[in-house]
């Protein structure tokens, strides 16, 4: 059952068309990411759901009701701002209590609720501190608690991890995912970081230039990108227009172009047993980048710099070394369609077996 729906939403900022015919449907209890490059309109969508912006046309539906003319404060949402927007002149306690006090909740109930939330976010004992006396991660947790205090039905988060150091960010990601799963609250968050979206979200909505490109689970987006944009945006892709020069790949149309991801590529040292030796390309290693847990090997094939991932446990390769490169598959874009093209030698072998 769709809980949050956007129908044919359009939004302009002066002459800038920020949202173009947006249609979105989000199920109750799901954790959804709005993913796209900056300026793609993802934050605008979030702010329209919150009532911070009004669409020029179209309907926003929450729980079956059109909410276009209902102020944000009555839509049953909690909002976590990118910069948290904690009230700098209030203590942690007063920040979390704010929404409840506005609703004239009795002070004794407020106390109970705030204490409960402080425990939930692991910040018990910090209630008398001011936001300036908290670490980045603590601020984020307090902002989260403040948004949750009035028991919203939907939680909206604008780039929730953008202002945090890399290490804390990883912790907070899994923390947030656990919290939201535990509370079973419908949540939508905005991010420009695909790793973040893939790791945290149940479902991803990819936006680009004001449009929704594709909606689906992280696996679906990975396996079946619906548009050229998604094919090149998700994963670390290299565009290859002359892919028909590669062994075992053929063009059906001259306008076709392809995207190759590192995961689609294997490299073999000369002398290593190679399963598909005849269909592998010979290439020279141009660059090796240490990625911590693995190596990214860059090789040039028919003029294209193709990346491959190699485990650090495999025999080392060196820059300038001649190696074999085998490409399993690539995304082929024909006009606006994307299809997966598999190395024809694999298909043949499969028949043989």
């Amino acid at each position, binding site marked *: 059952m769709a809980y949050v729906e956007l129908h044919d939403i359009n939004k302009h900022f002066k002459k800038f068309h920020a949202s173009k015919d947006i249609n979105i449907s989000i199920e109750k209890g799901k954790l959804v990411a709005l993913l796209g490059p900056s300026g793609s309109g993802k934050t605008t969508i979030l702010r329209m759901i919150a009532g911070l912006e009004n669409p020029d046309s179209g309907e926003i539906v929450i729980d079956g009701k059109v909410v276009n003319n209902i102020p944000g*404060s009555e839509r049953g949402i909690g909002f976590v701002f990118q910069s948290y927007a904690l009230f700098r002149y209030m203590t942690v306690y007063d920040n979390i209590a704010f929404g409840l006090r506005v609703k004239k909740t009795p002070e004794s109930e407020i106390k109970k609720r705030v204490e409960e939330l402080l425990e939930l976010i692991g910040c018990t004992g910090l209630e008398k501190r001011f936001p300036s006396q908290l670490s980045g991660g603590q601020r984020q947790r307090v902002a989260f608690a403040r948004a949750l205090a009035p028991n919203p039905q939907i939680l909206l988060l604008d780039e929730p991890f953008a202002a945090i150091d890399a290490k804390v960010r990883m912790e907070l990601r899994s923390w947030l995912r656990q919290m939201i799963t535990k509370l079973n609250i419908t949540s939508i968050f905005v991010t420009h970081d695909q790793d973040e979206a893939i790791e945290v979200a149940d479902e991803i909505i990819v936006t680009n230039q004001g449009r929704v490109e594709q909606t689906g689970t992280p696996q679906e987006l990975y396996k079946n990108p619906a548009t050229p944009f998604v094919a090149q945006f998700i994963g670390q892709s290299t565009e290859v227009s002359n892919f028909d020069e590669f062994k075992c790949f053929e063009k059906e149309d001259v306008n076709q172009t392809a995207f190759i991801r590192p995961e689609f590529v294997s490299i073999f040292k000369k002398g290593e047993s190679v399963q598909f030796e005849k269909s592998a390309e010979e290439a020279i290693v141009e660059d090796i980048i240490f990625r911590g847990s693995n190596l990214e090997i860059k090789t040039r094939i028919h003029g294209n710099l193709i990346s491959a991932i190699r485990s650090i446990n495999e025999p080392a390769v060196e820059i300038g070394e001649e190696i074999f490169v085998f490409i399993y598959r690539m995304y082929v874009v024909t006009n606006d369609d994307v299809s997966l093209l598999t190395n024809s030698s694999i298909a043949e072998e499969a028949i043989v077996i």
Partner: protein
Amino acid sequence: MKKRRSVIPGFGISLGITITILSLVVLIPLCSLVVFSAKLSFSEFVYTVTRPRVLSGYFVSISTAFIASLINVVMGLILAFVLVRYDFKGKRFIDGIIELPFALPTAVAGISLTHLTTTNGWVGSLFYNLFGIKIAYTRIGITIALIFIGIPFVVRSVQPVLEKIDIQYEEAAFILGADSKTTFFKVIFPEILPAIISGFTLAFARSIGEYGSVVFIAGNTPYETEIAPLLIMSELQEYDYSAATSIALVMLAIAVVILSVNAIVQSIVSRRVNGLA
């Protein structure tokens, strides 16, 4: 469909208060100026503002204001530089006292400066006896009063900009081999030039219209030390509102030109800095 402007409530009330008070204090009086001006006959207007005494009034006001503002640019630049770059005893005192011309009533400043600079005043007697220069009741006196009025404008325009200039710019210039003179004129000066121009125009516009501090020291001799605002004042005292308004309109036009020139300069600079040229 009712269009809400922002999720933050209070648009109506703040707009209401703003427009109401603005109308009562500024807009309605301004309209009456426009209405009254429209009733002036053109030939009468031209006759009033081209009378030699009025022309001389404009000349005195503009020339003294211009010279005073130029002096203030030099002194203001030095003061701002000293305040931002150096540490010395009495720095906070200087920083505080610079605002004195904003805080001290102009008439009080006026009578004090006058008494100091008459031929038997503390400063005036010195200049008169040593160099034979009279200060009070001459255009020099007017200029002195306008320097007093205008100095904070330049300092307060330049100071924040100078503070924001990253010391790394200068260090970069130094490492590249520039001496401090080159660094100042090639690196710092272009950065603060817009602020200098802005401070100059603010001081200049203010000085042209200044009355309280000048009227005592000027002596108000027609064709010599009679400033334009004083001419408006005397017409008003004779209830000749048409003449007063005519003289005022020309002064307003001058102020608009000065401020527009500044606005244009600032927009050119900001466009260049932001790379939109």
